[in-house]
């Protein structure tokens, strides 16, 4: 049996959650391992598990203390019991779970009206707006994790030439805004205070609680942006409401 090449560390996220940590970094193979373990634990839940939450390089299991303690005979804590159970499961490499590989194309209008911060990148980066758009739409981005807001996807990795620090103070940010923070990119699903540098806006609805699949994106997706004009933006928005 092949041992998995990853080093797992465990730490308590309080007394009712345990985090499996693969290293404090943004790295595709680590994230792929996290996602497959996430699906593994979803399919074969751990004792007392309430839910599992994948992040860049960690997976957190929330559990019901009482439900775990019921299983324990030897006086150990729920935390210890679960840690051992997880360790046993991690010894086995994941049977390649059938995770649907999805590529999601997202139209973005990069025109000034929707891109309040794009010019802020032009000067320090010595780069034209056209270059920023070309670079942002050139690569595809992996959804490393969901968080912050319902349906908010943390995507990476953004090319160094257009990476930008967060704002020092959050400002009002419109739903659909496409932003950059460090070498991550993301889309605000809702109107919200936000600290990412906004370079465009998508007419697509990222979060719709009325749908069975309420989030357009999910962890593990591959996202590709493409530029649209303002006319196309409004056309797409209109079409959505007609449907």
């Amino acid at each position: 049996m092949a041992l998995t090449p990853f080093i797992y560390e465990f730490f308590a996220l309080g007394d009712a959650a345990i985090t499996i940590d693969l290293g404090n970094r943004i790295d595709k193979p680590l994230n792929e391992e996290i996602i497959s373990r996430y699906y593994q634990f979803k399919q074969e839940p751990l004792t007392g598990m309430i839910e599992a939450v994948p992040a860049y390089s960690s997976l957190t299991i929330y559990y019901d203390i009482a439900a775990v303690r019921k299983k324990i005979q030897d006086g150990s804590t729920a935390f210890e019991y679960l840690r051992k159970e997880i360790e046993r499961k991690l010894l086995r490499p994941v049977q390649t779970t059938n995770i649907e590989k999805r590529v999601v194309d997202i139209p973005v209008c990069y025109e000034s009206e929707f891109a309040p911060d794009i010019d802020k990148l032009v000067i320090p980066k010595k780069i034209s707006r056209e270059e920023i758009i070309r670079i942002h739409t050139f690569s595809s981005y992996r959804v490393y994790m969901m968080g912050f807001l319902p349906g908010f996807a943390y995507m990476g990795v953004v090319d160094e030439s257009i990476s930008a620090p967060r704002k020092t103070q959050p400002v009002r940010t419109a739903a659909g805004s496409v932003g950059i923070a460090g070498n991550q990119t993301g889309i605000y699903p809702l109107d919200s205070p936000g600290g990412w540098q906004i370079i465009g806006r998508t007419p697509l609805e990222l979060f719709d609680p009325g749908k069975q699949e309420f989030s357009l994106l999910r962890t593990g997706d591959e996202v590709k942006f493409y530029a649209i004009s303002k006319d196309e933006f409004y056309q797409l928005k209109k079409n959505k409401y007609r449907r």
Partner: protein
Amino acid sequence: MSLTVIKQGLQDTLQDAGRWGHQAEGINPTGAMDQYTMKVANILVGNDPVETVIEMHFPASAFLFTQPALIALAGADFAASINGEPVPYLHPIMVGKNDVLQFHKPLSGARSYLAINGGIAASEWLGSSSTNLKASIGGFAGRNLRKEDELLTCQPSIAMYMPQHEYRVLPWKADIRWPDEHTGILVLPGREWEQLTQESKENFTMTSFLITRQSDRMGYRLNNIPLHRLTNEEVVSSAVSFGTIQLLPDGRLIILTADHQTTGGYPRVAHVISAHHSKLAQYQPGDKVQFQFTNHAKAEELFLKQRQYLQQLQNACTLRLKEFLHAG
């Protein structure tokens, strides 16, 4: 109709045990800040302990009952009255048609709970009726209660079958003091605790910290002596939970509570144990919080003790209510 909001409160929402199971999609659990007290309120009126309740902050809403109801108040004492006469917390109360429930003064605590027998009808999403203010979903139209909102009960209240009379405080009271000898807030060390300087570590446990006005259902900002880490290493975002104490870039601390984001990238100094979430939820800006470290064994033991106490309370209250209804 069952009750109508006749005066809007500061931030009163419908809440339950929270919306669990979707944090992986960025859906934060929300739910009542003080789960223990929410359960006490429900138990007093014979509901499932996690039935939907109204969570109130001061100034709280005023309500007009349009039908008889069996209600109970628990949590922060806001000097409640019915038709202008003071009524106690932690007692079941029979209210009649046209009775008016009001709150006058914040005497203690931060959050007050109103439970109604039969449960409050609320819009559910993903198995929970908790209000998610950010996503504008769940509870009452996904928002705070406003003047003229009309709330219904899920099932006809047992009060409907009682003879019409003046409002009446039933003669038994829930004692909510579960056996816990700790005055401070017990915590477990967080992932980055060991990265703090020795001085910062001492400050964390030796000093009590003021809870600032920048505190709400998302979290409490503390006015602590700035703490420092031995490293500048950035923390890659990962899951956080109710009670996670994060170190902000300016050295201050924030304790995450019910409406926290699902993930965070600030260093995790410590975590408040589950059994002390209720106590934490009743702190107000201006109160001081004192942390004290414990271990898993103790944290779990306290959690089980609290849960067991609640079970005993439920047994006792169910019995009293049954006897009362039987006697008519």
